C-alpha cells in the first residue's frame, strides 16, 4: 500500500467487458462501468434491457458470459466474503420470509450488524409499519413487504447499495424516505447503483446514468 494508492480515488466496484446473454438475446456486450465512493449510478433502459441482470451479475447472482467484476481493485471471486460484507442488494423478490413478522425478519437478516431491537422497531415505525410489527409478512401488502426490506437501508452499515427498482409500490412518503437514504449513503462515503423506471430526483447528488438497450 503506497502513499499514492491511498490518495487515489480507487473505484469501489468495476465491471470490465461485461457481456451476458439471456436465451437468444444479447443483453449487454463489452460493457464497462465503475462506481466510486460518493457516487450514485442509475441503470436506465426499457423493460427487458438487462438492468436487473446487470445488477445481479455485479453481485454474483447472475452469470456473465464474459467480463470481470472487481471489488476495490480485486477480482470479486477472490474477495467474495469481503465484498459480501460491504454490499447490500435488494432485488425484485422481497427477500423476507412470509412466515416471520417484520421484526423477526430484520433480526434474522441483520446478523452481526446490530442486535438492537429498539432501532429495528423505530425504523419500522418510521416506514409506516408501526401497526404491523407482529403480523407475519405474508399478510402484508407488496408495498409493506418492500418497506420491511428497505429498513435495511437504515439498519445496516454497508458501503455499496445495489437496488433493483427500489421505488416499486411505494407511496410519496416512502419515495422520500428512499431518496433521503440514498443521498445519505452517497454523501457519507458509500455508493449506490439502482435501476428505476421513475426519474429519481436526489437532493444534492447527481446520479450518473447508464442506459441499457436492446442490442439488435
Amino acid at each position, binding site marked *: 500500500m503506497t502513499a499514492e494508492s491511498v490518495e487515489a480515488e480507487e473505484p469501489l466496484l468495476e465491471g470490465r467487458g461485461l457481456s451476458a446473454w439471456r436465451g437468444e438475446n444479447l443483453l449487454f456486450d463489452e460493457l464497462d462501468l465503475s462506481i466510486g465512493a460518493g457516487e450514485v449510478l442509475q441503470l436506465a433502459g426499457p423493460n427487458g434491457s438487462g438492468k436487473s441482470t446487470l445488477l445481479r451479475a455485479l453481485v454474483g447472482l447472475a452469470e456473465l458470459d464474459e467480463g470481470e467484476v472487481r471489488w*476495490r481493485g480485486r477480482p470479486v471471486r477472490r474477495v467474495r466474503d*469481503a465484498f459480501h*460484507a460491504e*454490499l447490500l442488494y435488494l432485488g425484485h*423478490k422481497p427477500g423476507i*420470509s412470509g*412466515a416471520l413478522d417484520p421484526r423477526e425478519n430484520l433480526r434474522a*437478516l441483520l*446478523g452481526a450488524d446490530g442486535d438492537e431491537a429498539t432501532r429495528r422497531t423505530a425504523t419500522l415505525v418510521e416506514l409506516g409499519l408501526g401497526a404491523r410489527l407482529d403480523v407475519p409478512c405474508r399478510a402484508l401488502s407488496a408495498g409493506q413487504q418492500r418497506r420491511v426490506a428497505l429498513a435495511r437501508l437504515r439498519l445496516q452499515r454497508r458501503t455499496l447499495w445495489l437496488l433493483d427498482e427500489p421505488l416499486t409500490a411505494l407511496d410519496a412518503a416512502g419515495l422520500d424516505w428512499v431518496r433521503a437514504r440514498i443521498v445519505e449513503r452517497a454523501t457519507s462515503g458509500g455508493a449506490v447503483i439502482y435501476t428505476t423506471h421513475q426519474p429519481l430526483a436526489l437532493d444534492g447528488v447527481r446520479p450518473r446514468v447508464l442506459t441499457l438497450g436492446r442490442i439488435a
Partner: protein
Amino acid sequence: MSSADRHAPHPRSTIGAGPSLLAIVGGAVARDLRIRIRAPGEWLNPLVFFVIVVTLFPLGIGPGPATLALIAPGVLWISALLSLLLSFDGLFAADHRDGTLEQLVLGEGPLSLVVLGKVLAHWLLSGLPLIVLCPLLAVLMQLPAEALPTLAASLALGTLALGLIGAVGAALTVGVNHGGVLLSLLVLPLTTPVLIFGASATAAAAQGFAAGGQLSLLAAILASALALAPLAASAALRVTAASDG
C-alpha cells in the same frame, strides 16, 4: 501509533468483527425452526405418511408375528427413508420463492454453515420425530424389543446423514418444476447405503447379533456427509441463485 496507521490495512478489509461460526449455525437453526413451526403441514405430512405406511404392512400382509418381525427392520427403515424424501422438497423451496435464499447466498460468513443450520432445523422436525415414533411402530411390526436400541441408534445416525445428503439434492433441484422426483433420483445412490446399513444393523440386533460394524459404517457415512454435504449444497445453491432473473 502513527506509523502503524500509515501501514494499517484498509479499514474495510478487517472483517474480523463478523459473527462467530457457532452464531451463524445457531442463527440459521433458530430462524428456520421459527419458520417451520409456523407451517406445520410441511413437516407433519411426511411424519403422518411414515406412520401410515408402516401401519399398512400388518394390515396388508397379515398380522402373523413371524413374517412381520422378519421384515420389520426393512419396513421401518424404508418408511423412514420415504418420509424423509418427501420432506426434502421443503428444505429450500420457501426461501427460494421469497428471495431470502439469494440474500443468504450474499450473506456474511460461510454459506455452508447456514446450510448446516438449515439441515439441523429440518432434522429436528423431520428426522428426530421418526426416532421418537419408531418404538411404537416397532411394536406394531413385532420387532423384538432387544433390537429397539439399535434401531434408534441407526435412525439417529442415518436420518442425520440422510438429511445432509438430501440437502445436496434439494439445493440442486430448487426451483425445478416437480423437482421432488428428480431430487429422489439424484440422492438415491447415496441414500441406499444408509438404508442398507441401517436395516441390516437392526436385523442383526433382532437376531441377537452385534451390530457394531453396521453402526460404525453409518457413523462414517454421517461424518463424510457432515464434512462434504454442506459445501456441496452451498455450491449448488450459488448456481441455483444465479440461474434466476
